């Protein structure tokens, strides 16, 4: 047995041992506040068990292992439906960035430890009304204010801002230079005067994203995490830092087995659905696709273990899997006949076709819209030319609105 297999098995055994307390069934019927509280307790337990910050340095409370063990643990953890969603972005991007770029490392260490134990949550304040796919189009201003800075403007789509203690933020410090060059990166205290968080309700009924308004929010200069005007590079580093994550070839929707069970239970026009050619094709095609994605992931793990860089094909997962989850969920609803209209907006997306379907579009937009992922593949991997960009080489304040 390889070390990694042993590691996974041990992790799985620990997860099994706490599943009744924190897992899927323990979470049924909880309010969001209760679920969040459970999540905080789970993170504490995970920390105590030695499965927090797996690939982070030990002096920051991590385990000092590699991203291989981290991905292996996450892969096991995903099976249990633990209440980790509130902390996913926090521990995925802002906190490691703080660890890497925070100027006051004593403070940073304190934050990292609290975040790992579920006591504090960080959010990522990048997107704005005018800066989504085009992140560098953002407008929130940071102006020099004595020795420090003053923030004014609005962020949009900030996941979990309503529960966050801190956030990382990109602001425009110089509108007279090209759009990428006038940005600076800071961390902010979400409880500071002048910060207002307003939840936005999404199509599926939940409200985990927010608008965040900044009204003369003052920062001392030690909040700055990039050179003045060098914020875009740190923003890119933030988006890249989680390169090695557990993937889900089900597109974060239900496992294909659930579709197969459904097809075995129901009929299509008087015949078992599982014998219907269209259903068989959908199953076969989805299986083949997911099989391919899983094999890409497995190979990436092998490459990492061998000390090599995984290939660019890993970027396909979200693009391919979420799109097909959307279609498969529609078909599963169809298979249920008129009764497919039954709806429980709180049903977990990994177990319910209706919530999987209604929430699928967010997966095709959040974390990079499909079109942007395709652009990245075309331009970065394949070397195809970029689209015409009239805003290139133009000072930000002269780009026609």
């Amino acid at each position: 047995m390889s070390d990694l297999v042993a590691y996974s098995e041990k992790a799985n055994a620990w997860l099994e041992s706490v599943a009744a307390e924190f897992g899927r069934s323990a979470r049924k019927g909880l309010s969001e506040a209760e679920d969040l509280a459970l999540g905080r307790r789970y993170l504490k337990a995970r920390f105590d068990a030695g499965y927090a910050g797996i690939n982070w340095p030990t002096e920051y409370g991590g385990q000092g292992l590699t991203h291989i063990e981290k991905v292996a643990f996450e892969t096991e953890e995903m099976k249990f439906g633990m209440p980790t969603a509130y902390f996913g972005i926090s521990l995925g991007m802002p906190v490691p960035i703080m660890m890497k770029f925070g100027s006051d490392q004593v403070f940073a260490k304190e934050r990292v430890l609290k975040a790992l134990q579920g006591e504090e949550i960080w959010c990522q304040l990048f997107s704005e009304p005018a800066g989504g796919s085009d992140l560098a189009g953002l407008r929130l201003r940071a102006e020099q204010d004595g020795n420090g800075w003053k923030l004014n403007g609005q962020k949009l789509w900030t996941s979990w801002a309503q529960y966050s203690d801190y956030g990382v933020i990109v602001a425009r410090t110089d509108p007279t230079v090209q759009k990428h060059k006038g940005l600076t990166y800071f961390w902010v205290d979400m409880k500071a005067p002048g910060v207002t968080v307003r939840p936005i309700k999404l199509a599926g009924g939940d409200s985990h994203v927010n608008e965040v308004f900044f009204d003369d929010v003052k920062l001392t200069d030690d909040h700055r995490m990039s050179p003045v005007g060098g914020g875009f590079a740190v923003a890119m580093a933030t988006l890249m830092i989680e390169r090695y994550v557990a993937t889900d070839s089900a597109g974060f929707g239900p496992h294909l087995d659930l579709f197969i069970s459904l097809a075995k239970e129901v009929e299509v026009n008087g015949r078992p659905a599982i014998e219907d050619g269209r259903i068989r094709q959908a199953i076969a095609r989805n299986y083949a696709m997911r099989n391919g994605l899983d094999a890409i992931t497995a190979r990436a793990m092998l490459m990492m273990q061998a000390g090599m860089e995984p290939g660019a094909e890993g970027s396909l997962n979200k693009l391919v899997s979420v799109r097909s989850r959307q279609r498969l969920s529609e078909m599963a609803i169809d298979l249920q006949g008129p009764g497919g209209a039954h709806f429980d907006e709180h049903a977990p997306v990994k177990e319910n076709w209706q919530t999987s379907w209604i929430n699928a579009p967010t997966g095709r937009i959040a974390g990079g819209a499909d079109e942007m992922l395709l652009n990245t593949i075309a331009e970065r991997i394949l070397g195809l030319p970029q689209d015409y960009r009239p805003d290139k080489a133009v000072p930000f304040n002269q780009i026609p609105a």
Partner: protein
Amino acid sequence: MSLLYDEGQQAIATESRRVLEARVQTDQLLPLLERQGEFHRPFWDTAREQGWTALALPEAYGGLELGLVELGLIALQAGRSLSGAPFLTSSFGAARAILDFGDDALRGHWLPLLARGEAIGAIAFAEGQSPLPANPTVKFSGGKLLGVKDAVSAALHADVAVVLAMNDSGPVLAIASLKDVERIGFNTFDNSRCIADLAFNGAPATVIAQGDAALDAAQHILALQAVITAHEQTGGAEVLMERARDYANTRRAFGQTIGSFQSVKHRIAEIYGLVELARAGALHAATREGHADFLKAAAAARIQATEAYDTAARDCVQVHGGIGVTWEAGLHLHMRRARTLAMEQGNMLFWEDVLVNELAGENA
């Protein structure tokens, strides 16, 4: 075959669009998603007041003696505005069942009420996954119905239902008043469809067709409704195409409108193709009523329209980026409606089979 709309038909389209756009707003529809048993009253009041409930019924019963083409035009506009209740289609289906297969007593009682919109009709054929079960489990014996019909649209408010049931010798199609029938409502992703299970516990009913004729009659009613629904789906897809276009023409990224990106532009142009195919197919089907190829035309229209609306819903949201998935922007009203319309009166899998059966039968 198709047809060119005449002046009267064009006036129906323009007028119904004008009145619906004035009276139905997204912010009135959104709260209905979270309330069981409610529908958009201004929509239904408008439908009654404008005579849409009477449109395709004979004058003898207070109808306006127009047909599928005209009712289709209304449904298309209703689809654009997200019709606030399923009753226009469900009542039309019930009325046609009574008109085409019922006796004078049934007609004389129900048709004037349905024409005035004072009664609401529902179609209760489906059981489990099957839109048209050949051996329904709901029993008809001694003039009474026993058993449960699952997830019937409009059932929470309907006064009369056309029920596909089973007696000793085979399937029957029966008309039942729902006065004393239990309605078991539940939460759905599109609550203004007023969906409920109907539990018949000895409700009296009148048979209008038996044996194979009952199944044929039921199939015919579904086909008539499918043509109306195909128009409604076309309207929904059309308005989504327009919203995607308008957004792509105004939303800016990378120093240009996002409509200048070919992937966005082509996505919207593809919706256009689907909408026009759906529109043409729906109108064609509306003109084929009474002809031997009606079922085929209805099935084709339904398939094309379902594809158009589901795709337009997916793609219009995608073109909107984050805004597309907010509650307030309301595009999910269309996502939800696209799915409910895809499921009512038989889903894609059903109509594909109907169509292929027709085509294969022709070849035999």
